[in-house]
């Protein structure tokens, strides 16, 4: 088995979590790579939707933006953005929403808005885009993130999107009927929320990763499941598919188109 990077492991582990009949609201970056690896391996019929309005898209190259031309050219159809958010997201048609994070807390609450105070931010980040409603309208939420104490924090500076809030039944108390974050995949481990507290708990470590590494790269005291598994290594097919995809993508984006 050839070697692989932690980021490749993260992307492939995320791809594995997707099912053939999922309808997936895809973000840019790792989510986009994971969704397309899934489509090119075990989930050929997965429906990928980008918030630009492209439904059932199958890009040969990963888009740089969520609105690249190839998304439309390969989609079953392309709808207006108001329709995308009204009929498809708010309408409850999406089974899986993928989110990344600048800051994440143990309950899956995400900040991509500001570092520091909102009115006088230390760093003004891009903001939520579709995330506030993706987080509450999709059947469940998968989060991918490279671990760092800077990004996995005890308290996020801004609630860009709501995960499990303070944990427990906080979603239900707000009248939110969807599951919220059910999976966190980092470059080191796979995490799932505790059934009761909803705090993310490590359920699987990637090959060669120690509990100490996970803790050193997380800003809160990490909880580990009673039985922690080892994440199966990427297969030849998974790795080849991801690397081919990324090679095609790099070639396409660096040259002028």
């Amino acid at each position, binding site marked *: 088995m050839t070697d692989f990077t932690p980021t490749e492991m993260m992307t492939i582990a995320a791809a594995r979590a997707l099912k053939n009949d999922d309808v997936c609201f895809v973000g840019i970056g790792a989510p986009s790579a994971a969704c397309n690896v899934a489509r090119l391996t075990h989930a050929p019929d997965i429906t990928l939707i980008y918030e630009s309005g492209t439904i059932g898209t199958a890009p040969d190259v990963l888009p740089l933006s969520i609105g690249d*031309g190839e998304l439309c050219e390969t989609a079953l159809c392309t709808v207006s953005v108001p329709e995308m958010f009204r009929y498809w997201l708010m309408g409850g048609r999406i089974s899986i929403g993928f989110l990344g994070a600048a800051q994440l807390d143990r309950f899956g609450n995400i900040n991509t808005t500001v570092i520091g105070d909102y009115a006088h931010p230390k760093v003004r980040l891009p903001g939520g885009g579709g995330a506030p409603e993706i987080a509450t309208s999709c059947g469940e939420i998968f989060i991918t993130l490279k671990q760092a104490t800077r990004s996995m924090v005890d308290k996020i500076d801004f609630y860009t999107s709501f995960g499990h809030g303070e944990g427990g039944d906080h979603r239900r108390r707000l009248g939110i009927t969807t599951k919220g974050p059910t999976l966190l995949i980092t470059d080191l481990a796979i995490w799932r929320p505790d059934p009761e507290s909803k705090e993310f708990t490590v359920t699987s470590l990637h090959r060669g990763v120690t509990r100490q590494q996970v803790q050193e790269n997380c800003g809160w005291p990490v909880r580990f499941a009673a039985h922690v598994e080892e994440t199966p290594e990427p297969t030849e097919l998974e790795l080849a598919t991801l690397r081919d995809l990324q090679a095609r993508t790099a070639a396409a984006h660096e040259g002028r188109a």
Partner: protein
Amino acid sequence: MAAFLSLHDAVARNLHDGDVVAFEGFTHLIPHAAAHEAIRQGIKELTLLRMTPDIVYDQMIGMGLARKVVFSYAGNPGVGLLRRMRDAIENSYPRAIETVEHSHSAMAQAYEAGASGLPCAVFRGYKGAGLPKVNPTIKTVICPFTGEELAAIPAHRPDVTFIHAQKASEKGDVLIEGIIGVQKEAALAARRVVVTVEEVVPSFKGLHPNLTILPHWTVDAIAVVPGGAHPSYTYGYYERDNAAYLEWDRISADREAFAAWMTENVLRVGPEVFAGRVEALR
């Protein structure tokens, strides 16, 4: 009724200091040529509406045209941050700007409500999110049947909306294809509509009946600007200049580099340069 004008005249007649203006196009069909014309004309004190401010507003903000920005995702799509907008927010350079921040869903539905002549958009959104705490224009209404609390925000009603489209007919009807985004809604929500197009065709006879078309009587001015969306793209004409988006991250990182780039590529040229910029992307 749609008047065919030069881009200079289309902007000069329809965009005024202090206007609330939307330059829309969701990644696709972003009206960069029209924005550059507004920059050349030095229009001031604008309130800029746009879901993703993107490079187009990074440039307008960096050149000091904006007093307020209403938005939902202030990133350089797929690349990173908008450094001129950040500089304005974090350091008030070149001037302080007011920001009103929404989610994509809210922005899209505010345009839809504006197109529908409604005073507000009512939707399920913002549950548990932080924006309602920092954006006082996010309120709620109670469903009179279920008692559910729904989000409500004011409809967008821009003084003028600028969009770029593939084609106009000789009558002035406008066709938009591909990723159609919020352009139809942004146009129908506005008091005035200015459209840049790749080309003019005799008529739209024979097209599929269900395409996205703005009838000529909903459009105020049309300017023919081939390549006018660059570095965004026009489906069927030329591809997105992803390299330019990557390059913008470097240019916009430095105030002087930005100023020099704008002088050379915007202030000292005219709309005719856009055709050349997309040659290699066709």
